[in-house]
């Protein structure tokens, strides 16, 4: 609307030609030139444009006469048009501001300039203020939303050939019992372990005996009854025991005489006796060949059994108890076939072990006054880890189970796998030798379909007869991890029992996180002091690195459960100061506030495998097959493999895998879009409108400076005139 009056009042009608001769026409011509020079680029533009617009789009304006009057108001002295250079300073500023009001592309300000009175102007100022305040509020909210650095987690389900992870298999027994005892420190630890376990077992029975003695002193009549009961229980329970014996072959009785405290020098001097812990009696004794493992139908409370029950015994009372019998079948003892046979020379010869170990060494082992068998076993395992750390890695590998002894059968994707090439040895402090399937990072293995027949199937033989006395459980430890990750079988592994086929169905998840400033994760290869060289960063590895650094800094030796740093020697098993320092600081780190000293974030890229487990009995009774290297009959082979072997299946439950990736929720592009939207909504302002304001500012500054300089010049002339 503010542009129409300029064009309509100068429309060149045919009648207007005659008006140029009059004085009034000259006045209009002067106004025309002045406005033209200020608004349009060319002197001749206006008439033509007005002519064209009149012919095409516009009719004659109704307010032409009024506009001319308004134009006359802008003239001075009635005869001269407005010349900005002749105006005073203040009037010139007002003129410029007025022109800016007409020209600006910001919404609302032209209305302010065209307001007819102060009431309209006040209303428009009020509206402009409201819009400005609303815009500022929205702009602050937009900027705050951008500065929060929010993330969006996108869950995608991809259907692709998922890469098969690395599978680490460990025996639950770290070292062979037949090999490890040759080392002096191990035999010391096992000797102390045995005596402490015996003491823990005896302490419970001593308490009962003390109670009986007290009653003996108090009451005379009851003494007789108690004593009679104890006499009846003098036999106790029988168990088979190995012993050194002297056999007289000239006699026809085939019985031997035991020498309990002596150690047998060979098989010829050894026999098996029925032993009673209560009375320490070992009788009868026969050579090893004359005892046979079998099943008995009945046993009494003293573990004395007979092969066949008496006539007339109820059928429900008949049982099939495992027992060991003399060859003629006259004397039988209840005995689990897989249990270890007691050695009498160890039972009676504990004093020999005591003399070999000094008091300080015993205290360093940390058994103290422990009476709980589970705690004693745990402490003994820890001592073995410390003792084995003194050996070299080659010696430790030789003492643990070899590859072909553990892994008997293996198939992947329905095809047999090469045990030598596909499995790599990794020595673990807790589990000894572990073997990693699919360790090679260059070779890509994948399951083409879901299901057990397209995964890894492996048969493992653990050889339970060669287990250490500190191994509580029989079975396999299995860890599923990425190829670049260290397995950590003691933390992330699963145990699988023998005598079962264990089915591990897994699903894969890929996580992709955003680093700073959005999140707090560690980029690939970001940490330089990682103690597991050649492996990717993980949170568990970071914590272990932090603990190891702390232990080395405070104790002067490294924790043997983790890799060492800078060639520092591991803490010694018999060094009391080392053990106490390690124990103290481990407890400190393990407290609630201890873990805050370690700053361990998640890795930015991570692959997680979730596992579901189910099992079935293996091998079945009907499986008439000679598994592995067993050369006996089928039934005996099945029995042996139930006790010593485990079958494992590791496969993908579903071939699709989840990909969780983080992305920024509110980027800078969206922020600028929202900012522009609010600018356009509340004030119709754009970047070029800001440029207009910048131009206006520059123009006013220029005028102010010019005016100031002019004032100084005038003042200088006045001073010169005064001096003159």
């Amino acid at each position, binding site marked *: 609307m503010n542009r129409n009056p300029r064009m309509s009042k100068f429309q060149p009608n045919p009648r207007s*030609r005659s008006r140029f001769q009059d004085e009034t026409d*000259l006045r209009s*011509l002067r106004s025309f030139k002045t406005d033209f020079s200020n*608004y*349009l*680029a*060319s002197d*001749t533009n206006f*008439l*033509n444009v007005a*002519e*064209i*617009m009149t012919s*095409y789009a516009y009719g004659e304006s109704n307010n032409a006469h009024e506009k001319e009057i308004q134009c006359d108001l802008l003239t001075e002295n009635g005869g001269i048009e407005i010349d900005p250079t002749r105006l005073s300073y203040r009037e010139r500023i007002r003129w410029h501001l007025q022109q800016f009001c007409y*020209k600006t592309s910001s919404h609302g300000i032209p209305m302010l300039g065209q307001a007819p009175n102060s009431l309209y102007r006040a209303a428009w100022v009020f509206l402009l203020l409201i819009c400005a305040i609303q815009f500022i509020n929205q702009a602050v909210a937009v900027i705050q939303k951008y500065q929060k650095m929010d993330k*969006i*987690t*996108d*869950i*995608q*389900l991809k259907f*692709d050939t998922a890469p098969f992870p690395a599978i680490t298999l460990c025996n639950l027994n770290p070292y062979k019992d037949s090999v490890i005892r040759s080392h002096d420190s191990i035999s010391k630890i096992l000797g102390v372990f045995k005596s402490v376990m015996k003491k823990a077992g005896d302490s419970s029975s001593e308490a009962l005996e003390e109670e009986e003695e007290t009653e003996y002193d108090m009451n005379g009549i009851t003494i007789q009854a108690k004593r009679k009961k104890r006499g009846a229980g003098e036999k106790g329970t029988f168990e088979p025991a190995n012993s050194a014996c002297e056999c007289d072959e000239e006699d026809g009785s085939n019985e031997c005489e035991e020498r309990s405290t002596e150690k047998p020098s060979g098989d010829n001097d050894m026999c098996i006796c029925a032993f009673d812990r209560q009375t320490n009696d070992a009788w009868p004794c026969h050579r090893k060949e004359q005892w046979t493992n079998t099943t008995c139908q009945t046993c009494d409370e003293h573990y004395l059994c007979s092969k066949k029950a008496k006539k007339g015994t109820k*059928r429900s009372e*008949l049982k099939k108890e495992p027992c060991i019998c003399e060859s003629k079948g006259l004397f039988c003892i209840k005995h689990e076939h897989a249990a270890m046979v007691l050695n009498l020379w160890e039972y009676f010869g504990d004093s020999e072990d005591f003399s070999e170990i000094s008091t300080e060494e015993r205290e360093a082992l940390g058994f103290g006054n422990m009476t709980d068998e589970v705690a004693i076993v745990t402490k003994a395992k820890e001592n073995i880890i410390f003792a084995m750390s003194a050996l070299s890695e080659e010696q430790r590998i030789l003492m643990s189970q070899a590859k072909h002894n553990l892994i008997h059968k293996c*198939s992947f*994707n*329905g*095809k047999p796998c090469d045990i030598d090439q596909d499995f790599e040895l990794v020595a673990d402090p807790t589990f000894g030798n572990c073997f990693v399937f699919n360790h090679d990072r260059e070779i890509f293995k994948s399951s083409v379909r879901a*299901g057990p027949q*397209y995964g890894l199937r492996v048969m493992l033989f653990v050889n339970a007869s060669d287990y250490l006395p500190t191994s509580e459980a029989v079975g396999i430890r299995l860890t599923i991890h990425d190829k670049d990750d260290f397995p950590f079988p003691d933390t992330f592994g699963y145990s699988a029992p023998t005598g079962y086929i264990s089915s591990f169905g897994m699903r894969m998840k890929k996580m992709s996180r955003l680093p700073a400033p959005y999140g707090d994760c560690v980029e690939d290869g970001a940490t330089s002091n990682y103690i597991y060289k050649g492996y990717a960063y993980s949170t568990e590895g970071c914590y272990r690195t932090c603990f190891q650094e702390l232990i080395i800094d405070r104790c002067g030796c490294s924790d043997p459960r983790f890799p060492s740093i800078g060639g520092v020697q591991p803490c010694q098993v018999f060094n009391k100061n080392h053990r106490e320092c390690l124990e103290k600081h481990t407890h400190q780190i393990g407290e609630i506030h201890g873990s805050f000293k370690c700053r361990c974030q998640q890795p930015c890229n991570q692959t997680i495998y979730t596992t*579901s*487990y*189910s*099992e079935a*009995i*293996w*091998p*079945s*009774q*009907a*499986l*008439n*097959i000679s598994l592995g290297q067993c050369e006996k009959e089928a039934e005996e082979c099945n029995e042996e493999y139930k006790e010593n072997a485990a*079958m494992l299946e590791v496969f993908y*439950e579903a071939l699709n895998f989840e990909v969780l990736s983080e*992305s920024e929720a509110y980027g800078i*592009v*969206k922020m*600028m*879009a*929202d900012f*522009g*939207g609010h600018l*356009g909504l509340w004030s119709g302002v*754009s*970047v*070029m*409108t800001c*440029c*207009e304001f910048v131009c206006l500012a520059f123009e006013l500054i220029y005028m102010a400076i010019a005016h100031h300089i002019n004032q100084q010049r005038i003042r200088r002339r006045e001073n010169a005139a005064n001096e003159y």
Partner: protein
Amino acid sequence: MGVFWTGLKYVFTDFSCWTSTHGVPHIGMANARWLRAFWILVVVVSIALFIWQFITLLTNYLSFSVNTETTLQFAERTFPTVTICHLNPWKLSETKSVDPDMSALIDAYNSDSSSAQFGLPASLTADRQQQASKWTLMYSERLNEKQYNDAADIAYSYDDMVVSCTYNAKTCNITDFNDFYNPSYGNCLQFNTDGMYSSSRAGPLYGLRMVMRTDQDTYLPWTEASGVIIDIHMQDEIPYPDVFGYFAPPGTASSLGVSYVQTTRLSKPYGSCTTKTKLKTTHYTGTYTVEACFRSCMQEKIIASCGCYYPAYSHASNTTQYVSCDNGVQTLSNLNCVDLINSADSTEFDVLTDCDCPQPCEIDSYGVTVSTAQWPSDSYVPTECNPGGPSGPWDASGESCLDWYKANTILIEIYYERMNFQVLTESPAYTFVNFISDVGGQVGLFLGMSIISAIEYLVLIFLVFFYCCTHKSRRAEIEQLEMDIKKAKDDVDQVAEKRKKHQKANAELYEMDTAHDIVPPKPHSND
């Protein structure tokens, strides 16, 4: 031609006066050349910035990203269908007496020598067991036909498997179960196939509890594990326990806790899943699952390569067009041909690239947690083991009833772990409305334009077009107009000259006033 371009310039200059686009009026109204150049630069830079932002927004829109919404709902749910199969598919003695080929296979397997008829290696190795299992799959269709048509008792029925059964603390019986044939495991039992049972509470007491028998004396000699396998799935799905099943061993109480997850995904262009719920091919008609699609695709490949269909996969019932791979003397070569395609390491056939089997968009899945305990305990006496109870297989084997129970029975519990279930729903992260809003914001920020401004440009195009059509007929008019303007300009020049004279006279007047203001010289004093 000069008149035409002059007129065109007038049109554009006039447009710059009345357009609502920011910046363009300043180009038209600039009264200095440097000011016009400045505004042109500002407009060009703003347009460049807008184009950059627009490309970024367009890229973001065309990536079709999705948001996943996770909610937790609580409702009474239908109990899932439970399919329980024996790990041994066929009974040993009954199968031997019914089928002569199966009897020959069992005899060949039990002898320690190699068999050219069945391709069994000489030594007792795992390969021998695998080959026997493959032959069992090949013979599965004919054994199934004998089971149902000839009423031969070679598979495990309800009475063979189930000792007792309760659901929701009430007794269930044979009418609640359906028979389901699976090539790998023979006859399976299915519970709640029609969805009649639902759970309103969580926990083992309100689920399915079964005591089942696994008589290992009836096992085939190449069945390596004992127990049952359990598949939990939706009512309208065909179960595949050989792929998705869970083991349960005898001598244990196996507890399967079920949790339900419902997933809804978006199809193209956001994702690559399929919206069809039914799969209809030559050999399979039913609910669409990826495994069913794979097997149908592989069956097509087997028929194309081997000339016969694989009995272990579903196939068309038209027997004249297709023949079974189990056909007498050619079965061994057919088995090798099928094995070549079934093998995962085969170079001839890749199931992922050759089969078009995308994921379905609607997935209802059950997560299962398995835990076990010893069954039965030492102090528990089953009903059958009471004195005076019925006679059973323990009488024949000579062991006690409790020992037989430990070795051959399973307690199975299947229940909902919790009644709330997870619902995952995908929605578009950046819709077309968001795209339009963001583009509008960028346009408003850099150019101050709107839809009305776009219409203004359309009007400009129309004006230019109209001027081009009529500029010839208006040539004389424009020339006359120019002459009038020139004449007016001369008049203006005359007025300007007059004004200059006036200014000159005024200036002289100012100079005279200045002369009068000069201070007179000081007078000299007479000493």
